[in-house]
């Protein structure tokens, strides 16, 4: 595990909205083939961090390195092109476009792999094949999340960022989604996800960072974090 190469490195990153500090001097690393969880309550800065990585939000200070290249000031489309893909919060469906079109756009920068990856996706989620000509907006919440994840892997990314994948899903589906993530990990993908549902996230992930008010308050192996009393009381609730 330890020889694995580093995919993403964040150093001393700070983001300000005007005077308000959203992220304060965060340091973070993601290695190849891991699932890393960002835990934190609403407003802890999880979404801001993900948006900053892909360049939707400007970093005020600090440095983001992806595959040993500085991407701090790179525009969103170029970041995506380098091999990061995103499953946005609320799934980000292009609701009035078809399932197929959503998938095709997932590989915007890699047109030559569309056909073969479509086959893989349909194999994994046969339901998406059945519904491929349906508008994405007509799918159920869980199906939409499947589509969002499928769309994210269409372009063979090296790193997938998921913003609150379990949001507004039934518990059954949440398990399903995390199992899919584990499968993806086994296929060699690296995953960084943000979660409020810390219990499930820590159960399936390798490592975790706990964010509070824009700062990293704890980090470590998921199993350690799940056992940490402070984390248990703040994020896992009373068992």
């Amino acid at each position, binding site marked *: 595990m330890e020889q694995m190469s580093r995919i993403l490195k964040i150093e001393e990153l700070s983001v300000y909205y005007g005077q308000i500090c959203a992220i304060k001097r965060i340091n973070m690393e993601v290695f190849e083939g891991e699932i890393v969880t960002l835990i934190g309550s609403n407003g802890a800065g999880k979404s801001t961090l993900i948006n900053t990585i892909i360049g939707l939000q400007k970093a005020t200070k600090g440095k983001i390195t992806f595959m040993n290249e500085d991407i701090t000031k790179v525009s*969103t*489309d170029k970041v*995506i092109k380098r091999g990061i893909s995103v499953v*946005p919060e609320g799934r*980000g469906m*292009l609701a009035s*476009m078809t399932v197929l*079109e959503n998938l095709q*756009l997932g590989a*915007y920068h890699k047109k030559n792999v569309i056909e073969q990856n479509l086959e893989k996706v349909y194999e994994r989620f046969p339901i998406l094949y059945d519904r491929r000509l349906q508008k994405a907006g007509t799918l159920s919440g869980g199906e939409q999340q499947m589509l969002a994840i499928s769309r994210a892997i269409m372009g063979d990314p090296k790193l997938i960022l998921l913003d609150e994948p379990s949001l507004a899903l039934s518990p059954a589906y949440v398990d399903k989604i995390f199992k899919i993530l584990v499968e993806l990990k086994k296929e060699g993908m690296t995953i960084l996800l943000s979660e409020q549902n810390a219990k499930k996230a820590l159960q399936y992930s390798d490592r975790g960072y706990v964010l509070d008010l824009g700062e990293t308050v704890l980090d470590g192996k998921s199993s350690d974090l799940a056992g940490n009393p402070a984390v248990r009381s703040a994020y896992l609730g009373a068992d």
Partner: protein
Amino acid sequence: MESFIAQVINGLATGSIYALIVLGMNLLVLVRDIVHQGYAHIIMITMAAGWITLNTSGGNIAMAIAVMVVVGVLVTMATEPLFRPLCKRGAQLETIVLAMSVGIILTEFMSQFVNSGGNFAFPASMRGGGITLTFGLIRLSLANIIALISAVVVALVLLWFMHKTQQGRAIRAMAQNLRVAKMLGIPFGMTGMIGFGIAGFLAAIIAILIIMTIGTCGPSLGDTFAVKSVILMLFAGMGNLKGGLLSALFMGLIEAMALAYLPGSWTQAIFYGVIMLVIIWKPNGLFGTAK
């Protein structure tokens, strides 16, 4: 009956031009969510460029068409950077006013510098040789037939592009949810430029079709098309490509009928009154669905 058929063909000919203008404007709605009235004026400037080329090159039609394509594309793309800061701060209403001022500038440019502001006509050679097939009052000029067919072909090609190519899908994705589109790696600036470029190419085609069917151009041409096209676009539903096509063709017909059979002085009031009522009744347009 004969005259009725003649009026129908008239209506379809003008309707197809409106349809293409609305199509071009709709494309710009999709890429930048703007109402670009100045688009009609760009078509006018493109026609002027073609006319000037014809005059200076001694009637070289191929060259004139090449120049028109270049001018159409470049001028349309040149307006993109004007809209960009407004789009970035989400000032959609302001873009209407900005497009209007693009229109003022182009109109006045024509009034001052092109043919001293006078109207000009294109030679018969550029209008299908003036060949007409006449059946009583029904005049089917070759140019009209070509124009109608090309309008249909161009519309189909554009619809194909928008639905079946990655670029087209990207444009539609941007129109639907800019944030998600960005997260998918669709470049905002580049895709917009491509959209404007295609709209510009379409402008050149429309210019050629207007030359073929109407054959004249002047500083007032832009204003003639601008407001009506924008209102038609709204009538059908902003950004609705197919709806825009249908309602423009339909309106062309209605207008020809109104001109032929209604007292002239009331046509304008009736035309705009009906459109306004429909828009108020269905704010998302006749073919529109709520976003």
